[in-house]
């Protein structure tokens, strides 16, 4: 019992760390707020079973696989794992940029938390908007999402070809 309630507490702490912006976020409280990165991270390590695996398909079609904790946002996963996705997360998770736009598979999309008007508003500015698009900074990892595949949308006219000078071909 004791352990399970401790785990519960930890989980709650972890979930609390993925605080999405409240629906009315105008006003004094948000001014100067540095965004979601101020939150303390979960106080203790979770066991490896609590890790959720996410596969990102990049613009070049590469698959990047990374893990995060329950309650982490997909932006946390990208940042904490140092994933190389150009320009991702410009506003640092404050619902002000839509650079964290990701496309989900339909069955996964249905499992995601309900979307707020504010997220929809920002999503409307995203490139390559689809029916199963969401903003990664607003998606919190939950167990049922383990092993999900998310796609990074193409950007602009997608005239860019990947050239990396100094990288292995």
């Amino acid at each position, binding site marked *: 019992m004791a352990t399970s309630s401790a785990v519960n507490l930890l989980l709650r702490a972890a979930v609390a760390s993925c605080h999405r912006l409240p629906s009315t976020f105008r*006003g004094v409280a948000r001014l*100067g707020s540095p965004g979601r990165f101020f939150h303390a991270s979960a106080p203790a390590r979770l066991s490896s079973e609590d890790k959720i695996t996410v596969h990102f398909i990049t613009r070049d079609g590469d698959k990047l696989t990374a893990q995060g904790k329950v309650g982490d946002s997909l932006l946390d996963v990208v*940042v904490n794992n140092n994933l190389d996705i150009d320009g991702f997360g410009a506003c*640092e998770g404050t619902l002000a940029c839509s650079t964290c736009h990701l496309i989900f598979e339909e069955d996964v999309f249905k499992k995601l938390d309900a979307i707020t008007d504010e997220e929809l508003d920002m999503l409307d*500015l995203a490139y390559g908007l689809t029916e199963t698009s969401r903003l990664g900074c607003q998606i919190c990892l939950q167990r049922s999402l383990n092993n999900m595949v998310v796609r990074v949308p193409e950007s602009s006219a997608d005239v860019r070809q990947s050239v*990396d000078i100094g990288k*292995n071909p």
Partner: protein
Amino acid sequence: MGRSGGIMRWKRMSAFRFLVPSGSPTGIKRLLSTDGLIPRICIVGSGPAGFYTAQHLLKHHRLAQVDVYEKLPVPFGLVRFGVAPDHPEVKNVINTFTQTARSDRCSYYGNVTVGKDITVKELQKAYHAVILSYGAEDNRTLGIPGEDLAGVYTARAFVGWYNGLPENRDLKPDLSSETAVVLGHGNVALDVARILLSPLEILRKTDITEDSLAILARSKVKRVCLVGRRGPLQVAFTIKELREMINLPNARPFLDPTDFKGLGDVVKDAPRPRRRLTELMAKTALGEPGEEVAGRWASASREWSLKFLRSPLEVLPATDGKRARGIRMAVTRLQGSGEMAKAVPTGEVEDLLCGLILSSIGYRSLPIDPALPFDSKQGIIPNNLGRVLGAPGLYCSGWVKRGAVGVILTTMNDSFDTAQFVLEDLQSGALDVSKAKEGSELVRSILQSRGIHPVSFSDWEKIDAAEVARGKLAGKPREKIVDPQEMLELISH
């Protein structure tokens, strides 16, 4: 600059993520084995275009040296001088730009006006490639009689004023009129209206300048009418900004129900952004507000409205012939439909009385150097995907490449594109780096001979720290220094 561990952690990560090319150096060795030379690249302008172009080059080229020249002592362009003070979260991009500027292979030279202190030709002598990212420093004009009367301001100057842009610091707009008209239905128009309507206690906690706050505190403006030449389906503003207006404390929206009847059906099949935007306007105009909202609106002391199908004809002078008394508008109707519909005058005119007129019909780029090609009709540097036409080694990105439209995301993508073409040209040899170039050393010696002292990024960090410290005293994120001379004294130039 005290920051929580969370931010620091993220910043370190982001630096790593954005700037360090992955993979072994063999590729570059092979590529550059014939010369082993460092491409020296110069960027003109330190707004989002400049910094995102630099970021992409540094990340995807292991050796490139990128120097950013900026006219003002302080960096970040419209992120500092355009983005509204009550949108601090948009300015988080500054953290990424700062990491770019701190890279060993990137240097910032503020207080250098390209075209005046140094020519583009001279920059080309010093660098293998020059990328023009100098934004849009002018505005479109209406070209109507009375545009220069007192009481008429461009939104660009008004925005520059409340954001502390040195050139507009003495604007001191006259806000003694109860009615203000904003011409244009873009996001800048909404920014301007919101600043005029926002309660002071909200603005006071932002980085709006002290002087602006003092003038806004005495403002008599009660009503802001936003006038568009086309209809509700053609507005250029976006839904987030509209929702913000609707939720503004102490200001009530007045949307004429007749403008919106039946529009729901029309937009049923429109792309989602247009559909949701129209639905929100229609709901506000036609729907019954809930109790809380109705109460808020009933007690609001200010109001705003959207007026459609009116094209400005003339600013009407007051009896003194100096001040604006109102605006005369042509009533228009739409020819065609959808985004491309055109406003044509019906022959009817309408006058609207107001003592304050803000024209928010768009920004425009200017040519900065007579040696550069410039398309003055479109207000851009003629280019093909960022390569300046007929000028090898010259590139452009951001608003000067595309025209003054698009949010930071658009500018980011467009800058990554330009940077990518530079990389492709380096790889193909179209951009010749076989001859070593001196880069900033040459430029610095030229500037020195002309008595110009560039501001470094660490100088900017001193200015930044001073602004943050001053802001702290007033309970604001920063108090911007608006006088460039004072900035230079602070870093003892």
